[in-house]
Protein backbone atom coordinates (compact mmCIF):
# COMPACT_ATOMS: atom_id res chain seq x y z
CA UNK A 1 0.00 0.00 0.00
CA UNK A 2 1.32 3.47 -0.88
CA UNK A 3 0.41 6.95 0.20
CA UNK A 4 0.74 9.49 -2.59
CA UNK A 5 1.05 13.03 -1.33
CA UNK A 6 0.75 15.90 -3.78
CA UNK A 7 1.28 19.62 -3.30
CA UNK A 8 -0.49 21.43 -6.13
CA UNK A 9 -1.83 24.83 -7.16
CA UNK A 10 -5.30 25.38 -5.69
CA UNK A 11 -7.01 26.13 -8.98
CA UNK A 12 -5.80 22.80 -10.37
CA UNK A 13 -7.67 20.78 -7.79
CA UNK A 14 -10.73 20.22 -9.91
CA UNK A 15 -8.68 18.98 -12.85
CA UNK A 16 -6.68 16.62 -10.69
CA UNK A 17 -9.74 15.26 -9.00
CA UNK A 18 -11.45 14.66 -12.33
CA UNK A 19 -8.38 12.89 -13.70
CA UNK A 20 -8.15 10.67 -10.64
CA UNK A 21 -11.80 9.75 -10.83
CA UNK A 22 -11.40 8.83 -14.47
CA UNK A 23 -8.47 6.68 -13.53
CA UNK A 24 -10.58 4.92 -10.94
CA UNK A 25 -9.45 6.37 -7.63
CA UNK A 26 -12.39 6.27 -5.23
CA UNK A 27 -11.35 8.63 -2.50
CA UNK A 28 -8.81 11.13 -1.33
CA UNK A 29 -8.19 13.64 1.41
CA UNK A 30 -7.55 17.32 0.74
CA UNK A 31 -6.10 19.98 2.96
CA UNK A 32 -4.83 23.52 2.77
CA UNK A 33 -1.19 24.38 2.84
CA UNK A 34 1.22 27.18 2.06
CA UNK A 35 4.35 26.69 0.07
CA UNK A 36 7.80 28.23 0.07
CA UNK A 37 9.96 27.64 -2.93
CA UNK A 38 10.96 29.15 -6.22
CA UNK A 39 7.57 30.72 -6.73
CA UNK A 40 7.53 34.13 -5.12
CA UNK A 41 4.86 35.59 -2.84
CA UNK A 42 3.49 39.11 -3.08
CA UNK A 43 3.53 42.46 -1.33
CA UNK A 44 0.63 44.32 0.23
CA UNK A 45 0.67 47.92 1.38
CA UNK A 46 -1.11 49.28 4.45
CA UNK A 47 -0.91 53.00 5.11
CA UNK A 48 2.28 53.12 3.13
CA UNK A 49 3.98 50.29 4.99
CA UNK A 50 4.88 47.27 2.88
CA UNK A 51 3.76 43.88 4.03
CA UNK A 52 5.49 40.99 2.34
CA UNK A 53 3.82 37.63 2.08
CA UNK A 54 6.42 35.10 1.01
CA UNK A 55 4.30 31.99 0.87
CA UNK A 56 1.85 30.93 -1.78
CA UNK A 57 -1.36 29.00 -1.21
CA UNK A 58 -1.22 25.34 -2.10
CA UNK A 59 -3.44 22.31 -1.80
CA UNK A 60 -2.20 19.07 -0.31
CA UNK A 61 -3.73 15.85 -1.60
CA UNK A 62 -3.35 12.49 0.08
CA UNK A 63 -4.28 9.40 -1.86
CA UNK A 64 -3.93 5.87 -0.59
CA UNK A 65 -3.41 3.41 -3.42
CA UNK A 66 -2.43 -0.18 -4.08
CA UNK A 67 1.27 -0.69 -4.73
CA UNK A 68 0.72 -1.52 -8.38
CA UNK A 69 -1.27 1.65 -9.02
CA UNK A 70 1.17 4.00 -7.33
CA UNK A 71 3.25 4.94 -10.32
CA UNK A 72 0.31 5.48 -12.59
CA UNK A 73 -1.50 7.60 -10.02
CA UNK A 74 1.58 9.76 -9.64
CA UNK A 75 1.58 10.15 -13.38
CA UNK A 76 -2.06 11.08 -13.50
CA UNK A 77 -1.62 13.72 -10.82
CA UNK A 78 1.49 15.19 -12.38
CA UNK A 79 -0.16 15.49 -15.78
CA UNK A 80 -3.36 17.00 -14.46
CA UNK A 81 -1.63 19.47 -12.16
CA UNK A 82 0.92 20.69 -14.65
CA UNK A 83 0.80 24.25 -15.95
CA UNK A 84 4.50 24.40 -16.77
CA UNK A 85 4.97 27.50 -14.65
CA UNK A 86 7.07 27.69 -11.52
CA UNK A 87 5.25 26.54 -8.42
CA UNK A 88 3.35 23.60 -9.86
CA UNK A 89 4.33 21.59 -6.82
CA UNK A 90 5.62 18.15 -5.86
CA UNK A 91 4.24 14.67 -5.70
CA UNK A 92 5.80 11.96 -3.58
CA UNK A 93 4.97 8.50 -2.37
CA UNK A 94 5.70 6.67 0.86
CA UNK A 95 5.07 3.13 1.98
CA UNK A 96 2.11 2.43 4.21
CA UNK A 97 2.16 -0.48 6.64
CA UNK A 98 -1.55 -0.92 7.15
CA UNK A 99 -4.76 0.82 6.22
CA UNK A 100 -8.07 0.36 7.99
CA UNK A 101 -11.53 1.53 6.96
CA UNK A 102 -13.02 2.89 10.16
CA UNK A 103 -16.59 2.02 9.27
CA UNK A 104 -15.98 -1.69 8.76
CA UNK A 105 -12.57 -2.44 10.13
CA UNK A 106 -11.55 -3.81 6.72
CA UNK A 107 -7.83 -3.56 6.03
CA UNK A 108 -5.50 -3.42 3.06
CA UNK A 109 -6.91 -2.99 -0.44
CA UNK A 110 -10.40 -3.66 0.90
CA UNK A 111 -10.16 -0.52 2.97
CA UNK A 112 -9.90 1.80 0.01
Amino acid sequence: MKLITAIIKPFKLDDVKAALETFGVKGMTVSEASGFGRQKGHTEVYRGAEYKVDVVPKIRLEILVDDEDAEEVIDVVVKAAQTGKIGDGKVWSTTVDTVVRVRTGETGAEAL
Partner: protein
Amino acid sequence: MEIDSGNTAWVLASAALVLLMTPGLAFFYGGMTRAKSVLNMMMMSFVSMAVAGMVWVLWGYSVAFGSEGGIPALFGGLDAWGLVGLETAVTDGLPDLAFAAFQATFAIITVALISGAIADRAKFLTWVVFIPVWLTLVYLPIAHWVWNAEGWIFKLGAIDFAGGTVVHINAGCAALALALVLGKRKGWPKEPMRPHNLPFVLLGAGLLWFGWFGFNGGSALAANETASLAFLNTIVATGAAGFGWLIVEKLRDGAATTLGIASGIVAGLVAITPAAAAMTPVGALVLGLVAGAICAVAVGLKYKLGYDDSLDVVGVHLVGGVIGALAIGVWGSAAFGADSLLAGGGIELLGKQALAVVATLAYSFIVTFIIGKVLDLTLGFRVDEEAEVSGIDLAEHAETAYDFGPSTSGGRSGAPAPVSADSKVEADA
Protein backbone atom coordinates in the same frame (compact mmCIF):
# COMPACT_ATOMS: atom_id res chain seq x y z
CA MET B 1 -55.45 70.14 12.68
CA GLU B 2 -52.14 71.64 11.77
CA ILE B 3 -49.09 69.50 11.68
CA ASP B 4 -46.14 70.29 13.95
CA SER B 5 -43.31 69.65 11.53
CA GLY B 6 -40.70 69.40 14.29
CA ASN B 7 -42.58 66.74 16.21
CA THR B 8 -43.33 64.88 13.01
CA ALA B 9 -39.69 65.03 11.98
CA TRP B 10 -38.69 63.56 15.33
CA VAL B 11 -41.26 60.77 15.26
CA LEU B 12 -40.36 59.81 11.68
CA ALA B 13 -36.65 59.84 12.53
CA SER B 14 -37.46 57.76 15.60
CA ALA B 15 -39.42 55.26 13.56
CA ALA B 16 -36.42 54.82 11.26
CA LEU B 17 -34.21 54.33 14.30
CA VAL B 18 -36.49 51.72 15.81
CA LEU B 19 -36.72 49.88 12.51
CA LEU B 20 -32.93 49.62 12.48
CA MET B 21 -33.05 47.90 15.85
CA THR B 22 -34.24 44.68 14.27
CA PRO B 23 -31.24 44.29 11.95
CA GLY B 24 -29.22 45.33 15.00
CA LEU B 25 -30.82 42.53 16.94
CA ALA B 26 -30.06 40.12 14.11
CA PHE B 27 -26.37 40.91 14.61
CA PHE B 28 -26.55 40.89 18.39
CA TYR B 29 -28.14 37.46 18.29
CA GLY B 30 -26.40 36.19 15.17
CA GLY B 31 -22.94 36.88 16.54
CA MET B 32 -23.79 34.83 19.61
CA THR B 33 -24.73 31.65 17.78
CA ARG B 34 -22.28 29.23 16.27
CA ALA B 35 -21.23 29.85 12.70
CA LYS B 36 -23.39 27.02 11.43
CA SER B 37 -26.61 28.69 12.57
CA VAL B 38 -26.00 32.41 12.23
CA LEU B 39 -28.09 32.75 9.10
CA ASN B 40 -31.12 31.09 10.60
CA MET B 41 -30.82 33.35 13.64
CA MET B 42 -30.65 36.48 11.51
CA MET B 43 -33.39 35.22 9.23
CA MET B 44 -35.80 34.97 12.14
CA SER B 45 -35.34 38.69 12.72
CA PHE B 46 -35.52 39.68 9.07
CA VAL B 47 -38.64 37.69 8.37
CA SER B 48 -40.24 39.33 11.39
CA MET B 49 -39.69 42.65 9.64
CA ALA B 50 -41.45 41.31 6.58
CA VAL B 51 -44.39 39.56 8.20
CA ALA B 52 -45.04 41.82 11.18
CA GLY B 53 -45.05 44.85 8.88
CA MET B 54 -47.77 43.32 6.76
CA VAL B 55 -49.81 42.22 9.78
CA TRP B 56 -49.54 45.70 11.22
CA VAL B 57 -50.94 47.36 8.13
CA LEU B 58 -53.64 44.80 7.51
CA TRP B 59 -55.12 44.47 10.99
CA GLY B 60 -52.49 45.06 13.65
CA TYR B 61 -52.83 48.80 14.05
CA SER B 62 -56.57 48.52 14.13
CA VAL B 63 -56.65 45.87 16.84
CA ALA B 64 -54.05 47.60 18.99
CA PHE B 65 -55.13 51.21 18.67
CA GLY B 66 -58.65 51.08 17.37
CA SER B 67 -61.33 51.44 20.00
CA GLU B 68 -64.40 50.68 18.01
CA GLY B 69 -65.58 47.29 16.98
CA GLY B 70 -63.69 45.48 19.72
CA ILE B 71 -63.86 45.27 23.51
CA PRO B 72 -62.56 48.66 24.61
CA ALA B 73 -60.65 47.47 27.66
CA LEU B 74 -59.09 44.51 25.86
CA PHE B 75 -58.70 45.01 22.12
CA GLY B 76 -59.85 47.05 19.17
CA GLY B 77 -61.79 45.96 16.13
CA LEU B 78 -61.06 45.95 12.44
CA ASP B 79 -62.39 49.41 11.65
CA ALA B 80 -59.00 50.73 10.67
CA TRP B 81 -57.89 47.63 8.77
CA GLY B 82 -55.40 48.47 6.05
CA LEU B 83 -54.94 51.83 7.77
CA VAL B 84 -57.92 53.00 5.80
CA GLY B 85 -58.99 56.45 6.89
CA LEU B 86 -55.69 57.42 8.47
CA GLU B 87 -54.11 58.94 5.40
CA THR B 88 -54.93 62.53 6.18
CA ALA B 89 -55.70 62.29 9.87
CA VAL B 90 -53.61 64.34 12.25
CA THR B 91 -53.63 63.97 16.04
CA ASP B 92 -51.89 66.42 18.35
CA GLY B 93 -49.94 67.84 15.44
CA LEU B 94 -48.73 64.41 14.32
CA PRO B 95 -50.00 62.62 11.21
CA ASP B 96 -51.70 59.38 12.24
CA LEU B 97 -49.63 57.57 9.65
CA ALA B 98 -46.42 58.73 11.34
CA PHE B 99 -47.69 57.24 14.57
CA ALA B 100 -48.75 54.05 12.80
CA ALA B 101 -45.31 53.75 11.21
CA PHE B 102 -43.58 54.34 14.53
CA GLN B 103 -45.69 51.68 16.21
CA ALA B 104 -45.17 49.22 13.35
CA THR B 105 -41.51 49.08 14.22
CA PHE B 106 -42.37 48.16 17.82
CA ALA B 107 -44.42 45.17 16.74
CA ILE B 108 -41.57 44.04 14.51
CA ILE B 109 -38.85 44.16 17.13
CA THR B 110 -40.97 42.54 19.83
CA VAL B 111 -41.60 39.36 17.92
CA ALA B 112 -38.00 39.26 16.71
CA LEU B 113 -36.74 39.45 20.30
CA ILE B 114 -38.36 36.12 21.10
CA SER B 115 -36.26 34.25 18.55
CA GLY B 116 -33.16 34.41 20.74
CA ALA B 117 -34.55 31.69 22.95
CA ILE B 118 -34.87 29.13 20.19
CA ALA B 119 -31.55 29.47 18.41
CA ASP B 120 -30.22 26.62 16.26
CA ARG B 121 -33.31 24.45 16.26
CA ALA B 122 -36.57 26.04 15.09
CA LYS B 123 -38.26 25.09 11.85
CA PHE B 124 -38.28 28.20 9.76
CA LEU B 125 -41.73 27.66 8.30
CA THR B 126 -43.23 27.25 11.74
CA TRP B 127 -41.56 30.44 12.89
CA VAL B 128 -43.11 32.26 9.94
CA VAL B 129 -46.53 31.00 10.96
CA PHE B 130 -45.87 31.83 14.60
CA ILE B 131 -45.33 35.51 13.86
CA PRO B 132 -48.86 36.56 12.80
CA VAL B 133 -50.51 34.23 15.28
CA TRP B 134 -48.50 35.49 18.21
CA LEU B 135 -48.84 39.10 17.23
CA THR B 136 -52.59 38.74 16.97
CA LEU B 137 -53.22 36.79 20.12
CA VAL B 138 -50.54 38.19 22.40
CA TYR B 139 -48.90 41.39 21.24
CA LEU B 140 -51.85 43.32 19.93
CA PRO B 141 -54.03 42.81 23.03
CA ILE B 142 -51.25 43.74 25.45
CA ALA B 143 -50.38 46.80 23.37
CA HIS B 144 -54.04 47.75 23.54
CA TRP B 145 -54.15 47.33 27.33
CA VAL B 146 -51.15 49.53 27.89
CA TRP B 147 -51.23 52.16 25.15
CA ASN B 148 -54.84 52.58 24.16
CA ALA B 149 -56.61 55.17 26.29
CA GLU B 150 -59.33 52.58 26.84
CA GLY B 151 -56.98 49.78 27.80
CA TRP B 152 -57.26 48.49 31.34
CA ILE B 153 -53.60 48.91 32.26
CA PHE B 154 -53.63 52.42 30.82
CA LYS B 155 -56.61 53.20 32.97
CA LEU B 156 -55.04 51.55 35.98
CA GLY B 157 -52.35 54.21 35.89
CA ALA B 158 -49.28 52.02 35.77
CA ILE B 159 -46.35 53.80 34.12
CA ASP B 160 -44.73 52.25 31.07
CA PHE B 161 -43.18 55.01 29.07
CA ALA B 162 -41.87 53.22 26.03
CA GLY B 163 -42.93 49.62 26.30
CA GLY B 164 -41.26 47.74 29.14
CA THR B 165 -44.29 45.52 29.58
CA VAL B 166 -45.61 45.39 26.02
CA VAL B 167 -42.25 44.76 24.46
CA HIS B 168 -39.69 43.38 26.88
CA ILE B 169 -41.52 41.51 29.60
CA ASN B 170 -43.85 40.21 26.95
CA ALA B 171 -41.05 39.05 24.66
CA GLY B 172 -39.10 37.60 27.58
CA CYS B 173 -42.05 35.53 28.76
CA ALA B 174 -42.88 34.37 25.28
CA ALA B 175 -39.25 33.39 24.86
CA LEU B 176 -39.39 31.28 27.99
CA ALA B 177 -42.55 29.60 26.78
CA LEU B 178 -41.03 28.74 23.40
CA ALA B 179 -37.79 27.55 24.99
CA LEU B 180 -39.87 25.10 27.00
CA VAL B 181 -41.93 24.02 24.02
CA LEU B 182 -38.90 23.37 21.84
CA GLY B 183 -36.69 21.89 24.53
CA LYS B 184 -32.95 21.92 24.93
CA ARG B 185 -30.52 21.83 22.09
CA LYS B 186 -28.68 18.58 21.63
CA GLY B 187 -25.64 18.71 23.85
CA TRP B 188 -26.81 21.62 25.96
CA PRO B 189 -25.54 22.47 28.51
CA LYS B 190 -22.70 19.94 28.43
CA GLU B 191 -21.37 20.82 25.03
CA PRO B 192 -19.88 24.29 24.97
CA MET B 193 -21.49 26.69 22.52
CA ARG B 194 -19.56 29.88 22.16
CA PRO B 195 -20.40 33.02 20.19
CA HIS B 196 -18.87 32.73 16.77
CA ASN B 197 -18.39 36.43 16.09
CA LEU B 198 -18.14 38.84 19.00
CA PRO B 199 -17.59 41.92 16.84
CA PHE B 200 -21.03 41.21 15.37
CA VAL B 201 -22.44 41.12 18.89
CA LEU B 202 -20.89 44.52 19.54
CA LEU B 203 -22.19 45.83 16.25
CA GLY B 204 -25.63 44.66 17.24
CA ALA B 205 -25.36 46.26 20.66
CA GLY B 206 -24.22 49.53 19.06
CA LEU B 207 -27.08 49.57 16.58
CA LEU B 208 -29.57 48.66 19.29
CA TRP B 209 -28.39 51.50 21.47
CA PHE B 210 -28.56 53.90 18.55
CA GLY B 211 -32.01 52.73 17.55
CA TRP B 212 -33.25 52.82 21.12
CA PHE B 213 -33.01 56.60 21.11
CA GLY B 214 -35.93 56.42 18.74
CA PHE B 215 -37.64 53.82 20.88
CA ASN B 216 -37.46 55.86 24.07
CA GLY B 217 -37.01 59.38 22.77
CA GLY B 218 -39.64 58.96 20.11
CA SER B 219 -42.17 57.65 22.59
CA ALA B 220 -42.67 61.23 23.75
CA LEU B 221 -44.31 61.68 20.31
CA ALA B 222 -42.82 65.17 20.34
CA ALA B 223 -39.44 66.85 20.29
CA ASN B 224 -39.65 68.38 23.74
CA GLU B 225 -38.30 68.17 27.30
CA THR B 226 -39.80 64.76 27.82
CA ALA B 227 -38.06 63.42 24.75
CA SER B 228 -34.82 65.06 25.88
CA LEU B 229 -35.05 63.51 29.32
CA ALA B 230 -35.84 60.08 27.89
CA PHE B 231 -32.94 60.50 25.48
CA LEU B 232 -30.45 61.47 28.14
CA ASN B 233 -31.55 58.67 30.42
CA THR B 234 -31.05 56.28 27.52
CA ILE B 235 -27.42 57.33 27.42
CA VAL B 236 -26.65 57.13 31.09
CA ALA B 237 -28.68 54.12 32.22
CA THR B 238 -27.33 52.09 29.33
CA GLY B 239 -23.72 52.93 30.02
CA ALA B 240 -24.19 52.29 33.72
CA ALA B 241 -25.72 48.88 33.03
CA GLY B 242 -22.84 47.91 30.79
CA PHE B 243 -20.55 48.93 33.60
CA GLY B 244 -22.58 47.09 36.22
CA TRP B 245 -22.39 43.88 34.23
CA LEU B 246 -18.61 44.23 33.90
CA ILE B 247 -18.20 44.67 37.64
CA VAL B 248 -20.06 41.42 38.32
CA GLU B 249 -17.95 39.64 35.74
CA LYS B 250 -14.69 41.01 37.06
CA LEU B 251 -15.54 39.92 40.59
CA ARG B 252 -17.03 36.58 39.65
CA ASP B 253 -15.07 35.40 36.64
CA GLY B 254 -11.92 37.47 36.92
CA ALA B 255 -12.31 39.13 33.54
CA ALA B 256 -14.56 41.82 32.07
CA THR B 257 -15.72 40.68 28.65
CA THR B 258 -17.03 42.29 25.48
CA LEU B 259 -19.97 39.92 25.53
CA GLY B 260 -20.57 41.21 29.02
CA ILE B 261 -20.63 44.87 28.15
CA ALA B 262 -22.79 44.21 25.10
CA SER B 263 -25.22 42.25 27.25
CA GLY B 264 -25.18 44.91 29.95
CA ILE B 265 -25.93 47.60 27.39
CA VAL B 266 -29.01 45.75 26.25
CA ALA B 267 -30.07 45.04 29.83
CA GLY B 268 -29.79 48.75 30.59
CA LEU B 269 -31.78 49.70 27.53
CA VAL B 270 -34.50 47.28 28.53
CA ALA B 271 -34.62 48.51 32.11
CA ILE B 272 -34.76 52.20 31.23
CA THR B 273 -37.48 51.67 28.62
CA PRO B 274 -40.49 51.97 30.91
CA ALA B 275 -38.73 54.48 33.15
CA ALA B 276 -37.09 56.76 30.61
CA ALA B 277 -39.30 59.75 31.32
CA ALA B 278 -40.06 58.94 34.94
CA MET B 279 -36.63 59.27 36.50
CA THR B 280 -33.96 61.86 36.96
CA PRO B 281 -30.67 61.21 35.18
CA VAL B 282 -29.09 60.17 38.46
CA GLY B 283 -31.99 57.83 39.13
CA ALA B 284 -31.49 56.37 35.68
CA LEU B 285 -27.79 55.89 36.38
CA VAL B 286 -28.63 53.90 39.50
CA LEU B 287 -31.24 51.89 37.62
CA GLY B 288 -28.64 51.03 35.03
CA LEU B 289 -26.09 49.82 37.55
CA VAL B 290 -28.68 47.70 39.31
CA ALA B 291 -30.14 46.22 36.13
CA GLY B 292 -26.73 45.45 34.65
CA ALA B 293 -25.53 43.71 37.78
CA ILE B 294 -28.69 41.70 38.38
CA CYS B 295 -29.03 40.58 34.77
CA ALA B 296 -25.39 39.49 34.79
CA VAL B 297 -26.36 37.07 37.52
CA ALA B 298 -29.75 36.20 36.07
CA VAL B 299 -28.36 34.76 32.86
CA GLY B 300 -26.98 31.90 34.93
CA LEU B 301 -30.45 30.85 36.10
CA LYS B 302 -31.12 28.71 33.07
CA TYR B 303 -28.35 26.33 34.03
CA LYS B 304 -29.91 25.85 37.43
CA LEU B 305 -33.48 25.54 36.24
CA GLY B 306 -32.60 23.64 33.13
CA TYR B 307 -34.36 25.54 30.33
CA ASP B 308 -32.34 26.30 27.22
CA ASP B 309 -33.08 29.97 26.65
CA SER B 310 -30.23 29.97 24.22
CA LEU B 311 -29.32 33.65 24.00
CA ASP B 312 -30.76 34.74 27.36
CA VAL B 313 -33.92 36.55 26.38
CA VAL B 314 -35.30 35.76 29.80
CA GLY B 315 -32.20 36.82 31.73
CA VAL B 316 -31.97 40.09 29.87
CA HIS B 317 -35.41 41.15 28.63
CA LEU B 318 -37.72 39.60 31.17
CA VAL B 319 -35.54 40.31 34.19
CA GLY B 320 -34.44 43.72 32.92
CA GLY B 321 -38.00 44.66 32.07
CA VAL B 322 -39.28 43.72 35.49
CA ILE B 323 -36.50 45.66 37.21
CA GLY B 324 -37.31 48.76 35.21
CA ALA B 325 -41.04 48.54 35.80
CA LEU B 326 -40.68 48.09 39.54
CA ALA B 327 -37.91 50.66 39.92
CA ILE B 328 -40.36 53.33 38.78
CA GLY B 329 -42.46 52.50 41.79
CA VAL B 330 -39.46 52.62 44.09
CA TRP B 331 -37.35 55.56 42.99
CA GLY B 332 -39.27 57.18 40.16
CA SER B 333 -39.29 60.95 40.23
CA ALA B 334 -42.42 62.71 41.39
CA ALA B 335 -41.49 65.67 39.22
CA PHE B 336 -41.96 63.42 36.24
CA GLY B 337 -45.22 61.90 37.41
CA ALA B 338 -43.98 58.93 39.39
CA ASP B 339 -45.27 59.05 42.95
CA SER B 340 -42.85 56.45 44.02
CA LEU B 341 -41.95 55.07 47.40
CA LEU B 342 -38.84 57.20 47.79
CA ALA B 343 -40.67 60.20 46.42
CA GLY B 344 -43.02 59.77 49.33
CA GLY B 345 -45.92 58.48 47.31
CA GLY B 346 -46.30 55.26 49.26
CA ILE B 347 -46.57 51.84 47.66
CA GLU B 348 -49.60 52.55 45.53
CA LEU B 349 -47.64 53.08 42.36
CA LEU B 350 -45.41 50.13 43.07
CA GLY B 351 -48.53 48.01 43.45
CA LYS B 352 -49.86 49.15 40.11
CA GLN B 353 -46.56 48.52 38.47
CA ALA B 354 -46.44 45.04 39.94
CA LEU B 355 -49.96 44.32 38.77
CA ALA B 356 -49.16 45.39 35.21
CA VAL B 357 -46.05 43.24 35.27
CA VAL B 358 -47.78 40.16 36.59
CA ALA B 359 -50.70 40.46 34.21
CA THR B 360 -48.41 40.78 31.19
CA LEU B 361 -46.20 38.02 32.42
CA ALA B 362 -48.99 35.55 32.99
CA TYR B 363 -50.96 36.33 29.85
CA SER B 364 -47.92 36.26 27.62
CA PHE B 365 -46.52 33.05 29.03
CA ILE B 366 -49.74 31.10 28.97
CA VAL B 367 -50.98 32.13 25.56
CA THR B 368 -47.56 31.79 23.95
CA PHE B 369 -47.11 28.36 25.46
CA ILE B 370 -50.41 27.24 24.01
CA ILE B 371 -49.60 28.70 20.58
CA GLY B 372 -46.21 27.03 20.66
CA LYS B 373 -47.63 23.66 21.64
CA VAL B 374 -50.30 23.75 18.98
CA LEU B 375 -47.77 24.65 16.30
CA ASP B 376 -45.44 21.96 17.56
CA LEU B 377 -48.14 19.32 17.39
CA THR B 378 -49.37 20.39 13.98
CA LEU B 379 -46.47 21.74 11.92
CA GLY B 380 -43.67 20.68 14.22
CA PHE B 381 -41.50 23.42 15.70
CA ARG B 382 -38.16 21.69 15.82
CA VAL B 383 -35.80 20.52 13.10
CA ASP B 384 -34.56 16.97 13.21
CA GLU B 385 -31.39 16.10 15.07
CA GLU B 386 -29.24 15.69 12.00
CA ALA B 387 -30.10 19.17 10.80
CA GLU B 388 -29.26 20.56 14.23
CA VAL B 389 -25.90 18.84 14.35
CA SER B 390 -24.80 19.55 10.81
CA GLY B 391 -26.15 23.08 11.03
CA ILE B 392 -29.58 24.59 10.63
CA ASP B 393 -28.38 27.11 8.04
CA LEU B 394 -27.73 24.40 5.54
CA ALA B 395 -30.71 22.29 6.47
CA GLU B 396 -33.34 25.02 6.52
CA HIS B 397 -31.92 27.63 4.15
CA ALA B 398 -29.57 25.72 1.85
CA GLU B 399 -26.87 28.28 2.61
CA THR B 400 -23.76 28.64 4.71
CA ALA B 401 -22.76 31.98 6.12
CA TYR B 402 -19.13 32.36 5.14
CA ASP B 403 -16.66 31.31 2.52
CA PHE B 404 -13.37 33.03 3.13
CA GLY B 405 -11.86 30.83 0.51
CA PRO B 406 -8.32 31.50 -0.50
CA SER B 407 -8.32 35.14 0.36
CA THR B 408 -7.44 35.51 3.98
CA SER B 409 -4.37 37.41 3.06
CA GLY B 410 -3.08 35.63 0.07
CA GLY B 411 -0.89 32.74 0.72
CA ARG B 412 -0.71 33.02 4.40
CA SER B 413 -3.58 30.92 5.44
CA GLY B 414 -3.28 28.74 2.46
CA ALA B 415 -7.01 28.23 2.08
CA PRO B 416 -7.98 26.62 -1.21
CA ALA B 417 -10.35 27.94 -3.75
CA PRO B 418 -13.82 26.47 -3.46
CA VAL B 419 -13.32 22.83 -4.04
CA SER B 420 -15.01 21.47 -7.06
CA ALA B 421 -18.46 22.87 -6.96
CA ASP B 422 -20.76 22.91 -9.87
CA SER B 423 -23.36 25.52 -10.62
CA LYS B 424 -26.57 24.73 -12.34
CA VAL B 425 -29.13 27.30 -13.19
CA GLU B 426 -32.44 26.56 -11.62
CA ALA B 427 -34.28 29.78 -12.24
CA ASP B 428 -36.46 28.22 -14.85
CA ALA B 429 -37.59 25.31 -12.73
